[in-house]
């Protein structure tokens, strides 16, 4: 996916709940590029325009798994705390 598609899909999937400035996506992508979690390659869109496509790497998937489990632990903890109230 290229940047615009990523922004759109975040919006769509989250059903417009997560409304961030779309521009902040780009520094985040750069940081992931440095870490080697994604790779970038120029390609052409359906409308025949040049766009940079980002792809998750194996290292990226691993990191995602790590982040997910971290996130679930935190969410789980928060949920439990809230339910206990």
């Amino acid at each position: 996916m290229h940047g615009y598609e990523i922004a759109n899909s975040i919006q769509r999937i989250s059903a417009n709940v997560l409304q961030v400035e779309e521009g902040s996506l780009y520094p985040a992508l750069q940081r992931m590029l440095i870490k080697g979690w994604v790779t970038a390659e120029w390609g052409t869109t359906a409308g025949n325009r040049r766009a940079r496509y980002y792809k998750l790497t194996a290292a990226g998937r691993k990191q995602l798994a790590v982040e997910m489990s971290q996130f679930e632990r935190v969410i789980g903890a928060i949920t439990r705390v809230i339910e206990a109230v």
Partner: protein
Amino acid sequence: MNWLRELARRLSMLMHRRQFDADLEEEVRLHLALRQEEQFESGMTADEARAAARRQFGNATYMKEESRIAWGWEWFENMAQDVRYGARMLRKSPGFTAVAILTLALGIGANTAIFSVINGVLLSPLPYKNPKQLVVIKEHDSLPNVMDIQRQTRAFSQGGGINVEPMDYTGGTEPVQVLVGRVDAGFLETLGVQPVLGRIISPGEDVQGGPRLAMVSNHFWQNYLGSDPHAVGNTIQLGGNSYTVIGVMPASFAPPVEHADVFVSLWVDDPGGAAERDLHFMHTYWRVKEGVTLAQAQADMAAIDRRLAEQYPAEEKERKSHLVPLHEWLVGDVRSALLVLFGAVGLVLLIACANFASLLMMRALAERQELVIRAALGAGRGRLIRKTLTESALLSVFGGAAGLLFAKWGTSMLLALRPENLARLNGIHIDTRVLLFVLVVSLLTGIAFGMAPAWIAARADVAEALKESGRSTTASTMGHSIRRILVISELAVALVLLVGAGLLIKGFSRLRSVNPGFNSSGVITMYLQLPETRYGKIPRQTQFRRELLTRLDTVPGVQVAMVSDIPLGGNYVGHRLVIDGRPPVAVGGEPLVQTLSVMGDYFHVMQIPLRAGREFTPLDREGQPRVAIVNEEIVREFFPHEDPIGVRICWAGDVGPPRWMTVIGVVADVKHSGLNQPTDPAVYTPFSQNDERWRRFMTLAIRARDASPGLVEEVKKQIWSLDGQIPVSDVHAMDELIAVSLAQQRFNMLLLGLFAALALILAAVGIYGAISYSATQRTHEIGIRTALGAQRRDVLRLVMRDGAKIAFLGIAFGIAGALALTRLMASLLFEVKPTDPATFTGVAILLALVALAACYIPARRAMRVDPMVALRYE
């Protein structure tokens, strides 16, 4: 390995920065365009759609910056930008740039030149195996003692000695004199030399009656053996004997102190001398065992000395051996001179830096308006400091590079000027250590001395400064007082250097005016040595000498005489003196006096005045009553209240009944060992009454009315007409020997004088800059004063008073500093106290005059200020 890959990615981004920016730009553009289309399709107008897309995206510039910062090269880009900007600024003001770079280049260049000498002489290891373990015994020793020490020592792993003897080498076209190092087998082994061809002598061959073997220096091999790769096994003729070459030394090898072209075994060459316990003529080198300290070695040596003294009371009663680390032995007397010079040149650098800082400060004040605007536009304080520092670091790096050029030139000048005792220590050149030194010094200079102006720049209060719009302000007053302090320090440091130089100059002129005791001008000397094989017997030696003088008398326009050791020639023989009728002194406790033999009208030729009695005549010869002439020092020391003429003296330790000599005359003292050395008591005897076979050497003293170039050749021809196998060496003009003996002092004086002059110029520039700046600042004030009726004289006084105050403070601090520092150079001074009041006064006056002259120029300019112009100047 992850971080490595990450680093690689970051680096590749740095390499393709431009591509990166373009990619990001395109990406953002696409994003905005797609969003805009989407909004447009949902029914907005084109303008609304664009605005919405932008709103949704956020601050695009900020995002781009954030993306770049993520890669972590921001500091680098800032620096590159600062450097580019700094370079542009420097190009824009070439005058300022040139002065700043030149100032630093002078300071750094002079430092680098001296540092490269220190690096070569004091810091580089000696060219021997494990040189730190090597020590020398200060005292000369005899071979039997050396062998006893080798057997008894527990502190040394190896050791050996050398005695250098000039010998004639008669293989070439003319007989030449070569220096033969007569060594024991331990000598070359101790220094750890690996021959490039063949081998070194083994202990089995280093014995009485052993084979005649020679190890030749690389120099000898190249010059006399034609660099023959098969030289090993050849025979060479030395002193009338055939020696087989067994080894060739590497070119890098030379004995630490001695010059030698060939090495032979002392046992083989001179079995008689080698066996004499009291013939202390070898200089010995020792290798201290691993883990043994110098103090332990010294204690071990003392124990050996005690044993030898007990065992051989007649010869070794007074025995005492002092160990000195070889490095210290070699650089000992040069060390203090070099350190003083290094200190001095460091002070020059300080002055240069003060000037540099003061230049930067002036510039910072001039640019303050610009900095303030930058600050107002949001430049951080750190960023402003960094920008100013980058500029000064840039200047200092350029200064360092230019300094390196100066240093290259300065080093070759130093090498040309270097005195004899530095000449042997080669390796004075600019190497990586020197380059590192330059880099560190220049960067430190730039940063340390760029700090103050940067700080002033950063302190600027934006609102306040903008209001003032360039009028003189608190910051500039502060900058001004810092500059004053800098100039005062410059003057103080310059005074210290001037005092140092003044003291050396005074010492040198004292030294030059020392009466050597003879008239050197027009005297030529040459050294001859009679080969043992044909001149072993004394009558034969005497016959040669007498015949030679007779023949040389026929050369027109010259007077010739001979002496065993020429003054300032570096040779010295001493004997223990016994005076007839005095209470006997313990054996070995007799006073040591210099002994010289002469033939011909020596005192007349050298113009050494006769103080009492008579000179030698041709009748004072073999078979006649033995006579002696003493110098005034003998009279002062041993005959303070009596007439020495007619007193009988002889040498202690003579075998058999004393052979008395009658003192027949007194001559003036001669500086034999150097102009700065005390005169030793000395006794002259006629060569023809000489009873020591080993005195086969002599130096001719030739006084020529006009020294034509053919003279030396003519004398050589006469010598060779008598014996074609006698080498002639050390042909010198006596004036040259005097110059050599002054060389170290001259070197010190010239360099320190040069540094002081540099310091004086830099300090003068400094005070000139400060006064002219403050005078310009006061143009307005001066205009008002003139308008109110102040005379030109008053204006002149106003400005000059400012300069005089600075000069006075600088001189006062300088005198205090000099009093504290010149003590360090006491060892370099000859008959001048480090606190010599005349030098201090003279130097203070000189500095005051120069400082006032430097102030006079801006003062005169201020004096001419037209009040109308000055008042309108606002």
